[in-house]
């Protein structure tokens, strides 16, 4: 393995081990989205009787939400851990070594991506257990995991950027309500075309999270929908690129030798 590859592997391993050793960081991203899924799929089942609702199963409709909600937790975990590294001086000590800054970022995000795959597998297993069958088939499931990885990468880089800019775990945690607002003001509970209140529909239309959710949703309930996939992957890739550039730029300042 090359020196750079070894650095990334060691840091990714550290990131995963550190997450696993904090039960709250493992349980919360698995439990909270599933609880919200249970509550909403039970309470909003009547919505499937509305004319124009795209499926007769609200669980299938709502299963997309945990994938995005899980990514929000990835933002928090990646950011908080990195902020702790800054606060405890780990990053300063690391900057005394020949390690490249980009390896730190890649390693940290490698851990986040690994966790997102585990989360995705759990969400999908729960969906399959309650009778959801992805309309896009086996290939669609692969696309789903690819999308989950891309979203986790983007949101994880966003968390890393916040941590590198502020150096404070509390500041990163304060991002959570903001991201939560984006989630709730999207099409998470109802298709955009069925939102009755104009201003809410306008916000949902402008909210990128709507398109991330609809990308996953299309693979589960519609099949292969080029527009939904194009918008979802496009927005996720844009978020990932912008966040990675911002995080790399901030890292350069933090690791000034």
């Amino acid at each position, binding site marked *: 393995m090359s020196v750079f590859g070894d650095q990334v592997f060691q840091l990714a391993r550290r990131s995963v081990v550190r997450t696993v050793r904090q039960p709250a960081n493992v349980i919360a991203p698995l439990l909270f989205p599933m609880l919200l899924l249970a509550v909403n799929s*039970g309470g909003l*089942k*009547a919505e499937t009787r509305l004319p124009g609702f795209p499926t007769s199963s609200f669980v299938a409709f709502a299963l997309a939400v945990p994938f995005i909600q899980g990514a929000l937790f990835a933002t928090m975990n990646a950011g908080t851990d990195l902020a702790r590294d800054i606060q405890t001086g780990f990053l300063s000590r690391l900057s005394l070594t020949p390690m490249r800054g980009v390896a730190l970022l890649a390693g940290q995000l490698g851990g986040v991506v690994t966790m997102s795959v585990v989360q995705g597998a759990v969400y999908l297993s729960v969906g399959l257990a309650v009778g959801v069958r992805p309309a896009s088939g086996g290939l669609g499931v692969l696309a789903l995991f690819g999308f989950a990885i891309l979203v986790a990468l983007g949101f994880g880089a966003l968390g890393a950027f916040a941590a590198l800019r502020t150096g404070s775990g509390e500041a990163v945690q304060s991002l959570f*309500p903001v991201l939560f607002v984006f989630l709730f*003001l999207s099409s998470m509970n109802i298709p955009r075309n069925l939102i009755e209140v104009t201003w809410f529909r306008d916000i949902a239309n402008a909210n990128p999270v709507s398109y991330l959710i609809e990308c996953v949703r299309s693979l589960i309930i519609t099949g292969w929908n080029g527009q939904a996939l194009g918008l979802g992957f496009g927005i996720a890739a844009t978020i990932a690129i912008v966040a990675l550039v911002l995080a790399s730029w901030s890292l350069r300042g933090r690791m000034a030798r």
Partner: protein
Amino acid sequence: MKTLAVARAVAWRTIHNVLTTPSLLIPSLVFPLFFFTAFAGGLSRVRHAPGFNYAPGYTAFQFVFVVLQSAVFGGVFTGFGIARDFEGGFARRLLLAAPHRSGIVLGYAASALARWLLTVTVLTAVAFAVGMKVGGSGVDLFGLYGLALIMNVAALLWASGVAMRLRTMQAGPVMQMPVFLVLFFAPVYVPLTLLSGWIHAVAVLNPVTRVLQAGRGFLAASPTEVGAAFAAAVALALGFSLWALRGLRKAEAAG
């Protein structure tokens, strides 16, 4: 009298802390408004689902839930403050100084109530500003506030019982999660009759369902299950007052 003096001092300190700390004040005002916006704005089409009959409309339907939610979480957030007081050592000094320690619980309860009154005032003003309709003369609205007030006290007593037993901020999820589940396993989005399967079975047994239905009845000027709702709310408050007082004894014993 000594109990009341302790209660007054604890309440004043807690209210002062909340009012002068934006990170405590703003979320308790903004979150109920946010949920009100997300539910009443985003899901209003649900009122067209077959079998959904609620005359005042979906905004009023969700207003009742958000009022109860703000009351209950107002109590829980005050519980976080108690845990913080224990973690910082203030609560131990308070236990030493207070001649009648039940006044401590009473003081926290009074502060939770004051905190919620501020939230519900803002929430009600916003609801009327966005055109919420209320059936009848509007006097019944105070029935809803009465129920929410008892739920606020019940939630505070639950949270303070947990805080006094665990005495750490890490107890936050233990206070919050059961409350979240009990609230959301009630008919939040649609009336009970439109729920089906396991959630219906759970909602029927859930005491919050009675409170929610009575609150919605008040707003529609057709009170329903009022006796059962007040009985459920008072029973919760009484049950959790024992829980909180036993928690206080455990905190005293821990020194």
